């Protein structure tokens, strides 16, 4: 490989490390340090927790791991987007494509970077999964080799896709997905039919000839995890390396003409990343139809902001609706599990709904300031008061969250059988709760503005920062919930009346919601686009 490409990898690593700790404001550096400390503490906790439990035996590992590895390898091929070919970044296209590098040198460069990324990912995986291996080193090696092979195989498939007709590939992918779904359903059905323990059934299934053939590549990698002796480990590592070399050879053989496809794929990918960095999401990168939204005129001068967010929400509805469906499915599952306990049907229904409403959906419904980071300068120039802008900004996600909250409450009532009075109380509580949650998200965002998605630059800090902000949000929820609880408790102590207690709590909640709107308006007014804008 051209020495300049190796130098580029070295310079990029150096630049990445430099970005973790230098540059930017003091606040950024403090955040970075705190984030890394938090992340390190979490990883250490996970490592200690996993070490405390007994390791799995080789048989148990070989019975289950090949399934997971095969699934891990198939998912990106079957469900991944169309841009998984050798995707170059715009800078790589700008500097490397017209540069004096051979086609294969560039492919090797990307494969090397991919392998380095897999190695980093493997260390992360191993911290959590090392109980499922003969030793920590075995786990790191097995994870790294498996990830490298999966990535290379995905690239091979992407290159083959570039060679065959698009329609034929789409058909093959659909058939493959269908086969996988049928196989999973069949396995689940067979498992449910049998009385044997699940591990034993998995072992029996793994021993059947068709499954052995399908899982053969994954079994080689699983052997690295399950190796009992260094000699055995070295042998299986050599086998894995041979498979990786084969995949790499295939990539190099099939690479002819990849540059144009890579250019198109990279442009699409970059567009999507840009949208994600701006917080818009990935849904609307296809042609859209115009929307006529009537009746928003009553909102006066704020209608333009509301209209814009509403259109974005409706156009990207597929993405957040999927998140909602997932959340509902999860909530239903939890309510079924908790519903098995005879005395807690209400709690069983309420808790998951509350968790979804409080923690998950507000993160998904970003049709507010979080989506407007790059438009804040424009918003500031509008002849609108800060309070009007704040209300208009949080209106759309609040309404959507309220509607979803009511739907969840209705669903829970249907499944678990909530009394009408409880249902009414929940329905009344949903709107102020929604204002509070969305307002809180926006307040934290405006006080500590961050991009919704980190692209390459500060991945480690970004992960820790998200955790830190999550903790801050939880803290603010507790701070806000305190007065509501105190008021309710006071009224209950004085009256012992449930309606009075509820109404007092509801009033306190509404006041908190109003206060958070004012807090958002204040945070927006103090936001200085010249200094507070994150990179």
């Amino acid at each position: 490989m051209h020495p300049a490409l190796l130098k580029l990898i070295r310079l990029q690593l150096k630049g990445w490390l430099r970005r973790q700790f230098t540059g930017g404001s003091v606040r950024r550096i403090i955040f970075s340090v705190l984030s890394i400390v938090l992340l390190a503490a979490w990883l250490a906790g996970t490592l200690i927790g996993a070490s405390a439990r007994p390791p799995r035996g080789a048989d148990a590992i070989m019975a289950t791991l090949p399934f997971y590895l095969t699934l891990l390898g198939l998912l990106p091929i079957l469900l991944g987007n169309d841009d998984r070919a050798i995707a170059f970044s715009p800078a790589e296209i700008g500097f490397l494509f017209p540069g004096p590098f051979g086609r294969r040198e560039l492919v090797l460069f990307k494969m090397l970077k991919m392998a380095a990324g897999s190695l980093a990912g493997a260390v992360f995986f191993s911290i959590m999964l090392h109980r499922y291996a003969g030793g920590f080193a075995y786990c790191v090696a097995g994870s790294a080799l498996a990830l490298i092979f999966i990535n290379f195989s995905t690239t091979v498939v992407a290159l083959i896709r570039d060679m065959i007709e698009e329609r034929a590939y789409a058909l093959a992918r659909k058939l493959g997905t269908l086969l996988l779904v049928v196989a999973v359903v069949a396995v689940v059905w067979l498992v449910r039919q049998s009385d044997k323990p699940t591990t034993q059934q998995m072992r029996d299934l793994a021993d059947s000839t068709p499954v052995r053939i399908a899982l053969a590549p994954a079994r080689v990698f699983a052997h690295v995890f399950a190796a009992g002796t260094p000699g055995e480990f070295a042998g299986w590592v050599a086998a894995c390396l041979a498979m990786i070399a084969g995949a790499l050879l295939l990539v190099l053989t099939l690479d002819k003409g990849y540059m144009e496809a890579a250019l198109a794929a990279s442009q699409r990918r970059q567009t999507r990343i840009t949208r994600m960095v701006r917080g818009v999401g990935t849904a609307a990168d296809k042609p859209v139809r115009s929307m006529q939204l009537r009746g928003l005129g009553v909102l006066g001068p704020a209608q333009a902001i509301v209209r814009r967010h509403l259109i974005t929400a409706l156009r990207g509805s597929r993405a957040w609706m999927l998140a909602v469906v997932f959340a509902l499915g999860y909530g239903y599952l939890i309510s079924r599990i908790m519903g098995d306990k005879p005395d807690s049907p209400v709690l069983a229904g309420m808790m998951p709904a509350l968790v979804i409403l409080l923690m998950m959906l507000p993160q998904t419904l970003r049709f507010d300031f979080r989506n407007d980071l790059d438009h804040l300068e424009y918003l500031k120039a509008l002849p609108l008061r800060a309070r009007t802008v704040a209300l208009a900004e949080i209106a759309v996600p609040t309404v959507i969250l309220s509607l979803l909250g009511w739907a969840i409450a209705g669903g829970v009532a249907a499944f678990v059988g909530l009394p009408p009075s409880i249902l009414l109380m929940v329905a009344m509580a949903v709107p102020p709760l929604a204002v509070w949650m969305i307002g809180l998200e926006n307040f934290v965002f405006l006080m500590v503005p961050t991009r919704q998605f980190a692209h390459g630059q500060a991945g480690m800090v970004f992960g820790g920062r998200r955790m830190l902000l999550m903790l801050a949000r939880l803290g603010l929820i507790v701070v806000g919930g305190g007065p509501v609880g105190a008021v309710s408790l006071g009224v209950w102590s004085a009256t012992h009346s449930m309606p009075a207690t509820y109404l007092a709590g509801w009033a306190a909640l509404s006041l908190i919601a109003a206060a958070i709107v004012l807090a958002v308006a204040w945070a927006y007014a103090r936001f200085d686009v010249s200094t507070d804008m994150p990179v």
Partner: protein
Amino acid sequence: MRAPLCRDFLVILMGIREWDMLLPSRGGRRRGGGSGVFRLLILEDFTKSYKGTVAVQSLSCSVNAGDVLALVGPNGAGKTTTMRCIAGIIPPTAGRITVAGFDVQRQPVEAKSRLAYVPDDPKLFDALTVDEHLEFAASAYRVKDWRPKAESLLARFELAEHRRKPAIELSRGMRQKAAICCAYLHEPSLVMLDEPLTGLDPRGIRTIKDTIAEQARAGAAVIISSHLLQLVEDLCTRLLILHRGRCLFFGDLAEARQQFVGGAASDASLEEVFFRATESEAVAQDGPGAGGGTA
């Protein structure tokens, strides 16, 4: 055709692959050029299609050492596609592209070693500083003793004080200048700049214009694609007008004035020539002399 034929002859007889070794300069560039006989870029019947859409159709032209070619045309005319194909970023659908005597498709590394391409809104590596970009460029093009040259470029483009800033912290204009510094570092024979003047301050525009003229005087061929016609008018020695992928005109500005404005208005601006050429749909669609792009 003299130079390529001569090169092929030498290659066959003597096994000499490095045609530029015979030229009296380093970096494959013929200094003091402008004689008009050494063609650094040759496009022969170049065509590029995307899934049935013809982006550029049967374009044939050549650019000599010392020439500054203004590549102009409305949005979607095929300017960037042409530049990308010349730079070897995307392959042509048909035809042949030769840079400094090397076929871009058959000898891409040799051809690319002799060219530099700066796209519009150049993207740099976010985490790398300006200095590190130059270090990488020097390594990529195997430029020895690159530091003094880099220092000079940084000073010229007023980047010296920003040299240790990561690219992500640079403004668009600074990124543009940094990319041009990287492009000039290896003294390319063919320089292609896509919209190089957009987003720059007046001093930056002046500097880039000066350096383009210097590159040409030093024997490089320069291609500039720009919509700022007034700004490139005094720079260009040749003009290529593209419209909907077809070549409307290739030649000297004086010839363009003659063809599109008429002899009476010999002082017509490039802008006037451009409007006359592109507004004439009939010429673009049907004119056998204009279409096809053979020059």
